[in-house]
């Protein structure tokens, strides 16, 4: 059995690839080899000998579908991949679009549909959630600076300015909004999401939907330490039935298929949960869910293979993750291999 995983960029804003691999390997039932798929020659996961056996560079999403498919096809000729688990937001559209083609060469995936991907990204989320009694901050999609003028009439400052894939900034006035609009649109393109700012604590849920409306599992976490980039550097599993119920409901109404990270904020004063975002992949802290008793990535792997999966009933409360960094030492030879051949082999 060979499983290829992307997102080995275990950096200060980490991709979920390495924790997903760790989760697979953590399952006593998992027998197989891991293949790392990387976009950059310095993705740390590719240099970790006990993470993946082989690593291959693949083309960036902005290079188009053919480029990606052709590269995967040629890797598959050597490796005979059974399952690919993509873990990065910006690549999911591409993988979802070529999933049928991948299936035809024997590679299985378990991904959200394009519609589901669109639903979570657009202002439709607002309409959709209010219809199902899920509170969400107000959103507008800006495709030009012109659109920022409507902030005044729709919200009060501060507002949150978000890129379509990543990055979010809290801004206090129009000028700041313009600055971050320009910054984000240069990096990730348009639209830019302008969101009402809800004051309160953030809660995150790692979950897995089976595509039929059931949540296979859901583990909520409160961030204990947040970096200046807004990333959780430590977190603890908590017991909140309301949060679980809300997560199950979102997965059920969306018939979500694949892993997800749901981001909520609990409004100060009212204690109401607002859904901030539906991330279409597991979070980088997903191993906390595994440690708490729900091996969601392994369950996803089984779903991808078409096997039945029993929903998880519980998880341990009070499990803590604390992220740390570690300087891996390697030689120029390794860097040369990946740069020139596009491969790193840990055999």
């Amino acid at each position, binding site marked *: 059995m060979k499983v290829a995983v992307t997102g080995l960029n275990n950096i200060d804003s980490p991709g979920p690839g390495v924790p997903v691999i760790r989760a697979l390997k953590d399952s006593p039932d998992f027998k197989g080899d891991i293949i790392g798929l990387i*976009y*950059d*020659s*310095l993705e740390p996961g590719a240099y970790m000998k006990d993470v993946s056996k082989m690593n*291959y*560079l*693949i*083309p*960036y*999403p*902005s*290079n*188009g*579908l*053919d*480029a990606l498919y*052709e*590269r995967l096809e040629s890797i598959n000729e050597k490796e005979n991949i059974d399952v690919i688990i993509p873990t990065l937001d*910006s690549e999911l*559209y*591409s993988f979802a*679009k070529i999933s049928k083609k991948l299936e035809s060469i024997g590679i299985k995936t378990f991904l959200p549909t*394009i*519609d589901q991907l*669109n639903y979570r990204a*657009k*202002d*439709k989320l607002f309409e959709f959630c209010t219809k199902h009694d899920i509170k969400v901050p107000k959103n507008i*999609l800006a*495709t030009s600076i012109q*659109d920022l003028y409507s902030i005044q009439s729709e919200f009060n400052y501060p507002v949150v300015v978000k890129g*379509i*894939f990543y990055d979010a900034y809290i801004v206090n006035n129009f000028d700041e909004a313009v600055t971050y609009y320009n910054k984000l*649109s240069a*990096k*990730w*393109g*348009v639209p830019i999401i302008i969101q009402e700012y809800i004051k309160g604590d953030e809660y995150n849920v790692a979950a897995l939907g089976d595509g039929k409306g059931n949540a296979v599992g859901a583990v909520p976490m409160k961030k204990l330490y947040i970096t200046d980039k807004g990333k959780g550097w430590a977190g603890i599993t908590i017991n909140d039935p309301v949060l679980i119920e809300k997560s199950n409901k979102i997965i059920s109404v969306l018939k979500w298929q694949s892993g997800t990270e749901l981001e909520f904020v609990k409004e100060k004063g009212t204690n109401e949960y607002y859904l901030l975002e539906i991330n279409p992949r597991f979070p980088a802290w997903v191993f906390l869910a595994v440690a708490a008793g729900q091996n969601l990535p392994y369950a996803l792997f089984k779903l991808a293979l078409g096997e039945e999966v029993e929903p998880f009933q519980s998880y341990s409360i009070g499990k803590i993750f604390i992220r740390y960094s570690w300087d891996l030492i390697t030689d120029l030879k390794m860097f040369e291999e990946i*740069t020139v051949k*596009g491969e790193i082999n840990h055999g």
Partner: protein
Amino acid sequence: MDKKRYERPVIIKQYSGLMNKFGSSPVTKPMTEIDGIPIRRMVDEYGSPLFVFSEKKIRENYRKMYRLFKTRYPKVQFSWSYKTNYMNAVCSVFHQEGALAEVVSGYEYDRARRLGVEGRNIIFNGPDKNTASLERAIKESAKIHIDHFDELFEIIELTEKMNADVDVAIRVNMDTGIYPKWDRFGFNYENGEAMDAIKRIIKNPRLHLTGLHTHIGTYIMSADPYRVAASKLVNLANEIYKQYNIVLDYIDMGGGIPSNNTLKGQYLQAEQILPSLEDFADAITSPMFDLEMPHDELPTLYLENGRSLIDDAGYLISSVIANKRLSDGKRAVIIDAGVNYLFTSHWFNHKIVPGQQSGEFTENSAVYGPLCMNIDCLRENIVIPSFKKGDLVVILYVGAYSVTQWMQFITLRPNVIMVMEDGETELIRENENIEYINSLEKVPEILKNFSL
């Protein structure tokens, strides 16, 4: 002694987080032929730059799209959006496939008539239909889609003066949840203006309301707005049926379905984020089943697809004039086709691929046209292999709006050919010459003599 194969020497600095060689090499897959005809041969015969249309591709696109709609709704009629590409040969292919003509000016109307399309097979849209062209359209029983009240009143006056009856539809604009909202064309749905116009038409004995029309925008990147638009038109049609017992002949959902050409400012390629054609067909057809008239009297679904049927059937072959290094070390390639032929490059990042086998090393480059103007830039950044002077490149997705919006600025417009299904190439528009351009100009007598 056999010499070793040569390619341009290349050195590329490795940056982390930037394009790697494996990431970029497939992009450079060359396109050496179109429908089996080597592009080099076409250039030898017809010159460079050269616009090429594929008859086969146009027909395939049309048939695929038609099948998608026809399998979802029983009565479907396409009309070809002239403004997208009104080259006679191109229009003829669409008419052979069964498309009506959709025109938006007296000039386009004239083009369709000269091509042999009868008035009753012309949909006359647009905000500017002058009196003469309205008169002609009424006389020739074209389908007039009324855009505003002034036009409605002019048509009423004309029918009285001409003592003629006329079939009309109205164009409806509405909120479909997309930005920008196109509310400048037609009558508004939400504020009741559309229904007002409908009542006025129905009251007039000479005017016969035969259809409803909307066109929600261009390059619409999600299918849902079409669902909203279709249900609003279906509501109107049901209202007309219930109140006046009139069954409309057709509901015209316009066009606006995108091609896979990628807009500037978009991080992902169009093909990755756009809904499939099936999604658009589902969104447009599913509300049609809420129509309340008897099933054997259901209105026909009209569509005015343009871009989505022609964009990928058009190619622009161009030759490399020179390579340059810009002051910051970035490579620039100058080719013989510029923004004067590709107006669309102002908002699209047209794909540009090599026209011959090239080395595996690629480099981020700017691609400039030949005009002595700073605006003449086709791509600010594109990862392409190195070229020699005289090498060919092929610019993709140029079938829509290029050969209608092009101009003879600084250089004259080149040949346009069509690769026919039988493998022959046919010249469908000859390159312009100085006599052709000058024949329209007049120099006042007093200016004719000068000595330098």
